């Protein structure tokens, strides 16, 4: 029986979302004809492009997958925790490493600033720096979520989940992001020459913008009063300057590897869109 499935076609073109991808993979697993359809579609593509190979009747996939039955199934948390050495064909340039680390640093900066506001129950004048999921505290517990598939050797530690108190914050965050249909409300009317915005994230109770110029970057966080983790003023750590300023009923924090005067001027230039 020939079973048509337009998801297979869309998947070939990279035009499916995460949900449809999962559903399609389940269908393919249940229906070998769909897997053959995928194979034939690719043969047809090669035929259209004049790239047909020899041995088209050959299908080694069953042998490969049979051999892989003995292999461990990758677990996403294991993958995140311990990346193996890359088999990339291109060496990563020193410049790109630098930019990457800059971007990570900027993101982490932003996450730390807003994360402390978002994920701690009560705002404190003492910064409580932690990233969600990265630190085990009273809001976390370890458990086994009932995985049946074997995991990678050495990665059999139980999953970490948040208890209901902590989960409430994520539910609020989810509802806020999904339902609010928000658009950016803040911008800065001045920034140092050569910088451009590389990210603008909308988060519960605030927004964060990240600007970069080559290896330099700064982030601007705008939060409703009461959700910030720093008092007004200036701080310096690890080569980064942080300037906190009250702007009406909001609080602006600028963090980056820029001079203090520049950070202060940026903070002063932040304004609502309308």
């Amino acid at each position, binding site marked *: 029986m020939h079973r048509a499935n337009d998801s297979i076609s869309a998947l070939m073109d990279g*035009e499916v979302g995460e949900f449809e991808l999962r559903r399609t993979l389940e269908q393919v697993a249940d229906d070998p004809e769909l897997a053959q359809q995928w194979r034939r579609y690719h043969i047809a593509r090669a035929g259209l*492009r004049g790239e047909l190979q020899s041995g088209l009747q050959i299908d080694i996939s069953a042998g490969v997958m049979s051999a892989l039955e003995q292999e461990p199934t990758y677990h996403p948390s294991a993958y995140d925790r311990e990346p193996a050495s890359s088999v990339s064909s291109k060496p990563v340039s020193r410049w790109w490493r630098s930019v990457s680390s800059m971007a990570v640093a900027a993101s982490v900066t932003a996450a730390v600033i807003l994360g402390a506001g978002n994920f701690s129950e009560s705002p404190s004048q003492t910064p409580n720096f932690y990233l969600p999921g990265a630190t085990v505290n009273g809001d976390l517990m370890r458990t086994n979520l009932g995985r049946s598939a074997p995991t990678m050797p050495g990665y059999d530690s139980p999953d970490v989940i948040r208890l209901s108190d902590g989960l409430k914050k994520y539910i609020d965050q989810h509802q806020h992001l999904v339902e609010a249909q928000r658009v950016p409300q803040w911008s800065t009317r001045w920034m140092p020459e050569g910088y451009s915005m590389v990210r603008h994230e909308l988060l519960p109770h605030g927004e964060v913008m990240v600007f970069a110029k080559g290896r330099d970057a700064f982030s601007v966080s705008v939060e409703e009063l009461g959700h910030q983790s720093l008092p007004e003023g200036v701080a310096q750590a690890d080569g980064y300057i942080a300037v906190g300023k009250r702007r009406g009923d909001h609080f602006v924090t600028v963090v980056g590897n820029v001079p203090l005067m520049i950070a202060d001027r940026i903070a002063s230039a932040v304004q609502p869109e309308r």
Partner: protein
Amino acid sequence: MSNESQAASDQVLVKRVQAGDKRAFDLLVKQYQHKIIGLIGRYVYDPHEAMDVAQEAFIKAYRALPGFRGDSAFYTWLYRIAINTAKNHLVSRSRRPPDVDVDVDDAHYIDTDSELRELETPESSLYRDELERVVKTTLDRLPEDLRVALTLREFEGMSYEDIANVMDCPVGTVRSRIFRAREAIDKEIAPLLAN
């Protein structure tokens, strides 16, 4: 050909494998097996041996996949593994790898199975040519809206959204047209491949 969209499609499947879904790897194997066998055929001239080495290359790729970060396209990464596996295979058999290497960046485009073709029978060569003829003839005979949609996709590498703009129709219609075009071709080639 759109390498970017192909890479995007591959990356979606790669991420699923990395997230623990082996089924996605099956699709990658089905997608690339003929090219990989052809590539390995440049080093390992016996077709049956080439298939064994190809299988080994896919298994190695699966094992190495947690380390794949997408710095290069998946097929480039896979081809490198295949070439290394083929070379190691020759060394283990006390045979010398060929002096002329395959450039990994070019491997996707070159006629990779010239050596295997030398081992082809006239029948298998005719079979491949017939399959290609059927595919192209079916495309030519498709209704214009289906033919244009698939042509823009396969030869121009356009996204569904771009094709929708060109053809002045909704994205869903583009998706449906491309699927129907592929189905029409598949209907013609399925019996050939089954036999």
